[in-house]
């Protein structure tokens, strides 16, 4: 396998990149010492291309690509900026002070503006780069860590060492921000212009929107802070309190899992893969493919108690984000075969369901949410489909979610199902890879659309009863009943006009199976991503981190986000309308009501939900 990166066309015309850099540099509030706009006068990418070392290829097809690289750059690119600075220290000093206690100098504060030219050269970069390319959505390039190693700043004031040092320090700081936040946005927009002409008008539109609301420009690192758009994926505003929990959880979470130490471990892991060394560094909270790929391991469910619910959800939360690509390195799983094989584990029960099953039985809170998700998702899908959202959600990034979460699934439920074919559970793991891999990369979207809907539904539902009632035989029963209820519920549910009968017949078990097989992990993970966010919008109370993550994960590319927001608004509106028609208050979702009638201990359920606010890890 070889890649051919063509560097020369990139250096040919940099005028547009120059303009974009100029706007990016001028967008924020400037310190008082800078009294004019900053303009980029020269931008030369140099003749030496950066060196890329492939760490992982996550997804590869003719029209899309996802990979993680280690990038080192020691080329001859340079950048020249021009601006004007206020040279009188007294002037800048007074401009930030209150008038009342100002010494009010007569002329000592008179300004002297000096044109300043800064040249940045000898740029040395080194870092992990996540590169995602798809025909539809252009290139997304994100730096995993701070890539700037060193650079040389030369300016008009080189003769004055004090100013020189000051400039060097300031510019390095600014450049770090540029690399981590602005550059990905610029590259994304440039690539959209380049590859997809149909996006160009849309791009212009989004640019306007971005200009009007600056907050949307920043979501490149959506995990480091609270989301700046107080809107979840479906366009419903998230209130402040929710935001607080959201931000808190997500930030602590991500920074915990991507610490320096973890990066070192990842590096040693990748090192070990280059050699024949059998040494595999222990990486906490990572699940290796070797563990997961053996579905018949009898006690995997109970054998993973070391992975507490909190840790699992942490993994999930980490991987649900856009930036999660690097995390696939952490898991040690590489290549797309993982993606194909992983869902097999979750065939009967989705990864999340199995996860909570094995790990923590008392987590009714999350189970309940998932249960609701099933219902909501279906509706969402309907709405999404009807609004022609078919091709959009094929984010290659998110496939990691599925694989990761799937890998920690306890196998218990599968075995149970296998033993009872009467329940007509979805196919077992050995079969699946064929189907899914056949479908995997290039399968037509319409089919996905058709298939993905049921997948999460039955996948997510079953664990709920199990949870409330741990003994296994009962659990099986519960599975069966829940399956039934899914169907009945589905058939009973009033569908949005025109959609119901044609595209969504009540799911038979056989049909369930087929859909299970067909559902690509990618799409499943997608649906995963969406559901939690919908969830978070509904759950004004304590948000568990996965949901928080998934809301932020929607801030993928700017364009995508803008578009998603638009679509999501529509979807959310429809869902709400339908909800209102159902007359259903949001607390008991239909399947649960059914269960209640089946003499399920509903009180226990409710109580469990109420006392549950956050996973222990996040409380701590």
């Amino acid at each position, binding site marked *: 396998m070889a890649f051919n990166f063509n560097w020369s066309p990139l250096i040919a015309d940099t005028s547009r990149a120059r303009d974009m850099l100029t706007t990016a540099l001028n967008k924020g509030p400037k310190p008082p010492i800078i009294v004019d706009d900053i303009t980029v006068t020269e931008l030369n990418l140099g003749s030496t291309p950066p060196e890329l070392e492939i760490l992982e290829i996550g997804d590869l097809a003719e029209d899309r690509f996802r990979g993680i690289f280690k990038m080192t750059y020691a080329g001859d690119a340079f950048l020249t900026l021009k601006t004007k600075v206020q040279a009188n220290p007294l002037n800048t*000093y007074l401009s930030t002070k*209150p008038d009342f206690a100002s010494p009010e*100098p*007569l*002329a*000592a504060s*008179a300004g002297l503006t000096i044109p300043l030219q800064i040249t940045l050269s000898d740029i040395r970069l080194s870092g992990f780069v996540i590169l995602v390319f798809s025909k539809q959505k252009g290139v997304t390039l994100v730096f995993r860590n701070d890539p700037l190693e060193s650079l040389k700043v030369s300016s008009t004031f080189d003769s004055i060492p004090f100013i020189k040092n000051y400039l060097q320090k300031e510019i390095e700081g600014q450049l770090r921000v540029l690399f981590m936040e602005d550059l990905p946005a610029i590259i994304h927009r440039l690539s959209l212009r380049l590859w997809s002409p149909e996006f160009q008008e849309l791009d212009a539109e989004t640019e306007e929107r971005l200009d009007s609301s600056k907050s949307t420009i920043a979501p490149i690192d959506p995990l480091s802070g609270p989301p700046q758009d107080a809107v979840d994926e479906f366009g419903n505003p998230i209130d402040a309190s929710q935001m607080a929990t959201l931000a808190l959880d997500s930030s602590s979470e991500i920074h915990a899992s991507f610490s320096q130490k973890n990066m070192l471990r990842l590096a040693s892991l990748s090192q070990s893969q280059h050699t024949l060394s059998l040494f595999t560094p222990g990486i906490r909270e990572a699940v290796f493919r070797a563990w997961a790929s053996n579905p018949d391991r009898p006690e995997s469910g109970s054998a993973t108690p070391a992975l507490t619910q909190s840790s699992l959800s942490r993994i999930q939360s980490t991987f649900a984000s856009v930036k999660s690509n690097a995390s696939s390195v952490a898991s040690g799983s590489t290549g797309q075969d993982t993606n194909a094989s992983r869902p097999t584990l979750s065939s009967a029960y989705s990864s999340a369901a199995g996860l909570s099953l094995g790990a923590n039985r008392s987590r009714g809170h999350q189970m309940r949410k998932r249960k609701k998700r099933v219902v909501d998702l279906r509706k969402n899908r309907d709405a999404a489909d009807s609004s022609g959202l078919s091709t959009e959600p094929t984010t290659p990034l998110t496939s990691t979610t599925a694989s990761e979460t799937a890998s920690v699934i306890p196998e218990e439920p599968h075995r149970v199902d296998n033993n009872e074919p009467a329940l007509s559970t979805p196919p077992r793991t050995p079969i699946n890879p064929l189907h899914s891999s056949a479908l995997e990369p290039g399968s037509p979207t319409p089919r996905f659309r058709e298939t993905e809907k049921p997948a999460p539904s039955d996948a997510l539902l079953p664990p709920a009863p199990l949870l409330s009632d741990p003994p296994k035989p009962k659990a099986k029963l519960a599975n069966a009943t829940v399956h039934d209820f899914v169907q009945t519920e589905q058939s009973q549910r009033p569908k949005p006009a025109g959609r119901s009968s044609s595209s969504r017949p009540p799911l038979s078990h056989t049909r369930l199976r087929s859909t299970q097989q067909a559902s690509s992990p990618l799409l499943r993970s997608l649906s995963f991503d969406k559901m939690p966010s919908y969830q978070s919008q509904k759950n004004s109370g304590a948000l568990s981190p996965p949901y928080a993550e998934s809301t932020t994960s929607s801030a993928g590319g700017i364009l995508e986000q803008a578009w998603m927001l638009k679509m999501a608004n529509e979807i959310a509106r429809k869902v709400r309308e339908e909800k209102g028609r159902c007359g259903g208050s949001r607390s008991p979702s239909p399947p649960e009501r059914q269960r209640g009638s089946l003499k399920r201990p509903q009180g226990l359920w409710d109580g469990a939900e109420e006392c549950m606010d956050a996973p222990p890890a996040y409380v701590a």
Partner: protein
Amino acid sequence: MLDFMEHVQLAFYDASHWNLDNSYGTLNATARALLDFQTPRGLRLQISSLAAPNFATSYTLGNVGVVDGSVSYLYSSLPLERKLKSSELDLHNVIRGYRQLRELRRPDEDWWWEIWHNGKRVDRRDTLLYGRIFLPQSRLEALYVRRLTPTRQLRVNAVSDSNLNNGGTILTLLQNDHGKYSTEYMYSTDSALIGLRGLYNFGPDPRNAPTAPTTSQQVAEHMHGRFSAGAELYYGLLNKSGGISTGLRFATLPNHHGFPYTMTLTLNPLMGNLSSTYAVKAGPNLALCTRFDFNFYSYESDLQLGCELWRRRSNTDVEWALKKLRPDWKRPTVAPDDDVSGILKARVDQHWRVGVLWEGRIKDLLFTLGASLDLKKREQIFRAVGIELQYSS
């Protein structure tokens, strides 16, 4: 227009015989009044009162932001005699315009201030205390002024605001005014800025005993105008940066025969900034001012023009009747400047930024209407528009 509290402070300086004009900081006060005036933003209402000769209160309400306001109190140990009611006050005291310099006054002797009672000194130093709190922002401003001796005054300005570094800043100013020359020493807690200012007036020393001028030529030379020179120096101990400037001023005195005028020239040798102003009071109702800035390091220049026009109601229809009044008849007393319908201030600079201010008195209300415009930006000409209303009793 000065707000009520500033007016009260001026009244205090006046009552304690402190000459504000004899300071390097006010060297180009005329030009600043005519060119650098603030145009109001939004709506602002002020209700104030001098409840007792020693105590004043003022309440301000504005609509910058949503609603903001301030409450201020002032205490003066000197009873203030000046008319401060908005219906009675002299508009010349609250409108900052052309500043006519007065003759230098001989400073009081120390012993003039001594009051003895039963063998003990009972006199107190004149003190002014002023506090103002801005409500939504929770910013507190405080001022303390104390006349230490007839030639010395201590002023402490403090601002407390959580948004500022270290939560606030204090400026201490020690001013000496000896008539012939004046010096100021200041210290600001903000980056430990120390400052030094001095102003020297050429001409006869007012401290010398007023002797009859020897020759008529001497009278003509010295009494018609005053030439002053000064300098200032600042140094921030913490940020190791400083500033310096020197200045010259020539201003005519009241007994000048022609129209009064003021010329200043200031130079900032560090930053290469040269600024010259020329202000002239062309008539009782008109003052004009120009300022030219030039930087001989960057060759940047700027030109500003400003004017102040007092507009009076024509009372031609009753003038004939007034003329017929016999001199010994009792005329109806009128408030000073009662016929002033408004004062127009305008400025324009070479970038076509224009500021306009219309101030005056309607019944008991003092009003200020202002706008700043930018004629070069066609799509958004008005940059700020505002109105201020003041009432004081």
